[in-house]
């Protein structure tokens, strides 16, 4: 997780103002369900800011109306006892504090909820995206939307946005009070603010620039560490340690110098800002004292009293904070909006369209071959075909015949990877696809279950054009065992049950027995309840493969696609599971893709593909007699790459 956090956000953090505004408006729409809470938040902010501004003003009242008269031996100018006015101050402070807690709590609630809403929306959308979306991006890229982008967005919603509102209100309130107290002092403060902004911009800018560079060297160091940590065993075998360490020191030192520069600027900014506010304070005090002593400008301006000077000094302190607070938000605003942009890009992706209307239903077949739809599971299935033209519904028995007719396809339209493929797999037949990497074997299987749609030709399933079949039903009717087995966090049983969610424990065990997985599962520490983590890292490649076979077995579909299913299993283990595989394949239409020729030998029909075209087809004996490519492959004359 950590590695993905490094360089992604910086790279694409640039968005235009206009884009930013659109994203911002869209983000606001997520607040809609929480209107009442929003009102509470706004009221809370107003009360808490107002309270702290008012409290400071009360200080001036206390000084002017109680302290100063007292030092001159006079009575207080307000007819409330001193304790009373302190009591009012307490009330004001309390209101401010309570309001601040309430609104902060509401913000946390809304932000965590919105985050969740967005997250759920993203995930739901992602599940509906075509496979193509994922093959065009790295996993890290997609994942980064959930981690980096969601984090920056959170930062923006939870911190930047409230800070800006709260700080702006504070600035307005304090500024109004300062203006009310004294014009000349206020004018001076404005000048000081401009100076502060100047420092913020120059030093802050330099710091930001260096932080970008630091980020770049950081991703270099992360890259190096990752490469060499995963290759450490090779480094050791070749005794390449010294050289590798030298290389590491190089990136390490480069990172250090950019990090030093970036941190230096960031570090000196704080004391500069802090002490500028002291200078500000000192000069305000001098001017204030002069004004107070001389009564300068008394006729034109309201008189500057001691109490007001004390309050003004407090205000000048209160004024600096929100300004640097706002200044600090700019990066996170841009990062947050850029994150939002990528999140919305995901949400706005066009999902897989499914305009199929032929569905798969439980069916009963009577002696005469008539098919009727059934509510409960009958073990028999039928395609329910609704004909719009004459408003009738017909049923067709589900058999598992797959037919490709002049199919041409390319992942992009100018480059066909499959050309004019015609083949028929009759129910119960085993069809093997052989050819080099990139010949188009996997592509054919991707077309049958409609991960991709073909450009030319027709694919029929039990005689029905697959574009008419509802995608979910189409896919449910065929199981795939892929080369890369993917297991999910959960127990072994959960993973098998993935093929059939309502399977009983007995069914799970039966499937495992069929795939010859039962033996190793029962030797796991918790048997079927052993928790698998990190894609089944605690299992060997072969064991994972067995689980994935069991998963398909439990799904019990008439069509089975085995894409290099046994490639990572050694021949010895393969022999063990062979029986299971044979049992699994029994009575099903099977498409087998395999590198190892021993696994395709007994297929009913072998298709040799080259550059997207069928160059040879027939059974093993026929193809061997042909003495063509298949023969050459089998006798090891040519290389399968």
């Amino acid at each position, binding site marked *: 997780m950590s590695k993905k956090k490094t360089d992604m956000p910086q790279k694409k953090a640039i968005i235009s103002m206009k884009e930013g505004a659109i994203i911002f408006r869209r983000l606001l729409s997520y607040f809609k369900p929480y209107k009442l809470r929003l009102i509470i938040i706004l009221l809370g902010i107003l009360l808490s800011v107002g309270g702290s501004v008012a409290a400071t003003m009360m200080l001036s009242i206390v000084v002017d109306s109680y302290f100063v008269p007292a030092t001159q031996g006079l009575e207080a100018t307000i007819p409330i006892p001193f304790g009373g006015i302190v009591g009012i101050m307490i009330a004001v402070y309390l209101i401010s504090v309570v309001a601040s807690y309430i609104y902060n709590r509401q913000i946390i609630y809304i932000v965590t909820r919105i985050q969740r809403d967005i997250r759920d929306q993203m995930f739901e959308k992602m599940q509906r995206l075509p496979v193509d979306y994922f093959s065009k991006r790295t996993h890290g890229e997609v994942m980064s939307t959930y981690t980096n982008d969601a984090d920056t967005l959170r930062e923006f919603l939870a911190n930047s946005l409230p800070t800006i509102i709260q700080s702006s209100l504070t600035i307005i309130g304090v500024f109004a009070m300062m203006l009310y107290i004294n014009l000349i002092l206020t004018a001076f403060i404005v000048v000081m603010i401009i100076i502060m902004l100047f420092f913020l911009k120059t030093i802050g800018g330099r710091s930001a620039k260096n932080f970008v560079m630091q980020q770049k060297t950081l991703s270099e160091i992360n890259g190096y560490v990752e490469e060499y940590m995963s290759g450490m065993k090779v480094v050791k075998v070749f005794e390449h340690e010294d050289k590798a360490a030298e290389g590491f020191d190089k990136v*390490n030192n480069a990172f250090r110098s950019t990090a030093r520069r970036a941190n230096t600027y960031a570090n000196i900014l704080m004391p500069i800002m802090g002490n500028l506010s002291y200078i500000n304070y000192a000069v305000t005090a001098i001017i204030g004292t002069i004004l107070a002593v001389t009564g300068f400008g008394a006729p034109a301006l309201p008189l500057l009293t001691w109490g007001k000077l004390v309050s003004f000094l407090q205000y000048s302190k209160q004024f600096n904070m929100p300004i640097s607070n706002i200044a600090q938000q700019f990066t996170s605003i841009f990062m947050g909006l850029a994150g939002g942009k990528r999140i919305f890009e995901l949400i706005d992706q066009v999902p897989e369209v499914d305009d199929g209307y032929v569905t798969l239903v439980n069916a009963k077949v009577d002696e005469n071959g008539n098919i009727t739809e059934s509510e409960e599971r009958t073990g028999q299935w039928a395609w329910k075909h609704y004909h719009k033209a004459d408003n009738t519904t017909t049923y067709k028995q589900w058999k598992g015949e797959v037919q490709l007719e002049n199919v041409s396809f390319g992942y992009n339209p100018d480059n066909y990877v499959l050309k004019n493929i015609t083949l028929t797999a009759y129910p119960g037949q085993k069809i093997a696809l052989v050819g080099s990497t990139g010949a188009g074997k996997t592509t054919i299987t991707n077309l049958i279950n409609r991960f991709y749609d073909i450009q030319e030709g027709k694919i029929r399933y039990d005689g029905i054009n697959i574009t008419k079949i509802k995608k979910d039903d189409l896919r449910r009717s065929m199981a795939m065992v892929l080369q890369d087995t993917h297991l999910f966090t959960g127990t072994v049983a959960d993973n098998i049950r993935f093929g059939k969610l309502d399977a009983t424990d007995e069914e799970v065990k039966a499937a495992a027995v069929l795939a010859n997985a039962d033996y190793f599962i029962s030797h796991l520490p918790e048997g079927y309840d052993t928790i698998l983590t990190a894609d089944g890292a605690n299992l060997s490649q072969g064991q994972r493969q067995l689980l994935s076979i069991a998963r398909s077995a439990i799904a019990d579909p008439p069509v089975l696609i085995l894409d290099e299913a046994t490639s990572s299993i050694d021949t010895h283990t393969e022999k063990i599971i062979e029986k299971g595989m044979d049992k699994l394949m029994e009575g099903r239409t099977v498409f087998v893709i395999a590198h190892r020729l021993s696994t395709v030998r007994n297929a009913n029909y072998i298709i040799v593909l080259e550059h997207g075209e069928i160059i040879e087809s027939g059974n093993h004996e026929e193809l061997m007699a042909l003495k063509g490519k298949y023969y050459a492959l089998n006798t090891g004359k040519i290389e399968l790459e």
Partner: protein
Amino acid sequence: MAAKEEKKKRQSVISLIKEEMGTSKSDHVVRKLAKCIRENKTPSILTPIFVFFEVICEVFIPLIMSQMINAGTAAQAGATSFDFNFDFGRWSVRLFTFDSALELSLVAGALMVGLAIISMFFGAMAGRFSAVAITGLTRNIRHDEYNKIQQFSFLNLDHFSIPSLVTRMTTDVSNVGGAYQTIIRMLARAPFMLIFALIMSISISPSLSLVFAVAIPVFLLGIFGGVLIIFPRFLRMLRKYDKMNEVTEENIRAIRTVKAFVREGHETKKFKEISQNVQKLQFDAEKILVLGMPVFSLIIYACMIAIVYFGGTDVMQGEMNLGDFTAFLSYVMNILISATMVGMALFMLVLARASAGRICEIFDEKIDITDKEDALDEEVKDGSVDFEDVSFSYSKNPDKMNLEHVNLHIKAGQRVGILGSTGSSKTTLVQLIPRLYDVYEGSIKVGGVDVRDYKISRIRDSVAMVLQNNTLFSGTIEENLRWGKEDATQEELDKATKTAQAYDFITSFEKGYDTDLGQGGVNVSGGQKQRLCIARALLKNPKIMILDDSTSAVDMNTDAKIRESLRKEFKDTTVFIIAQRISSIQDADVIIFMENGKVLAQGNHEEMMKICEPYREICEEQQKGVIGE
């Protein structure tokens, strides 16, 4: 039942914290990491010194301020002479006397501005030196970690997962760097400020300062209490969050599986459940966190009110100057802000402690394979290999043996084929030869000498191994090949690549040997990669060559050619081949069939066909392919 669950939950919070802290003791961790400071000692010491002076300058500013206000009020009351005093309890130092309040104001103001500028300078210097110190320290930690990891034996490496090693060298190090910054800047500044501001406020009014006697303990208690409540909540939330990311990640990876089984809805439901959980835990944790700020304000306000009330009474009774009163208010803020900083700094240190512990685990890992004191620094005589009753266990547990009582005697220059099912410990067997792991019992002799008696570099120099998970590194083909021999001549390179059947495809590339491989060798196919790895190993001109399933992606024809040229060009080299294809090992001098960590049978092909039933089965099975000829 429910009570038990509840108890379990509570226990888990405590163990959660303990788990995060790791096993090593704090003082040990600190000492280990402190060793990495090295050349950064000077800036590390200079930083708090500059911070100290920065604080001193800052602390005087409100005091001077109070002189101005005192002079002003005195002027209004009709005074004609104005003293510039420093009062420290009973001692009062009169520095200057002025005739007008205005004069005093100007001098005091100039003094304040001057102090602010000096303080700014000190602050900037502290910032600069701390940047040097922190980046220097983190650089050294990374350097030390890397070098330590390089000394790791395979067994040591197996203790850590690769992602965890990466985290320990990146994120964890920056966390420690952040903590170090906290120590030399914040933890220097805050206590200094706290002490000086306290001194100042006591000197102004000892009785008013009693406020702090109440406020500071309440404050610290609040912070520690808060941390104790928040910390486990955050940990729980983060765990759930990690889990959510795990689910997301596996769904991205396995999208084809999800879609093939039409499980989109199922997975979405699962995700939403976790997502909701995360939100709840997040709210649980953060709602306490946001309580912090109001509580903090509440304490500050309470102090202010107390001071306004009690101090105000003093002012009205003429026992305190208005100027001193305002200065006191300033110090209140300084003191309470410093106290917050101490609390926050401690919180951050606690968070970084987990990272520091993880780094320390690397430093503390005991390297289990090292040179003996009197290790033999001689070249290995020949490539003969003898396993004498060798047993081995990854977990060093006699009940979980991965190899049991293996006896093998291989003469120099022999070809050895190893066959067996997944998990039969074929790889384990060969990894013992170059001492990547040490035997548990028995001994292995290479060239007649126990491998543990050689210097490690000697034995590894003479054994070349092509691992099952081949790794090529970013760089050109030539750079990768030269790992085998730094100063290899072009002839040597060509000889190795020709033997490994890689020469033709290398020269067919536009840039030949200079072709860039990209990270992990992504620019070549699997079979090409394997052949490059073999060539790299051959460049070592080894006495023993081990090919661990290194030709699985190479076609049979090329595979045969590699073996043929190996026999021709490296005839004195003992070659071990682990393979799945019978044809790869059929012609070996010795064939070993492994099963469950034991040698089931050994002999040449003819012998094996007679004595080893599983061997014969596999053989027949694999022969079928060519029967049709």
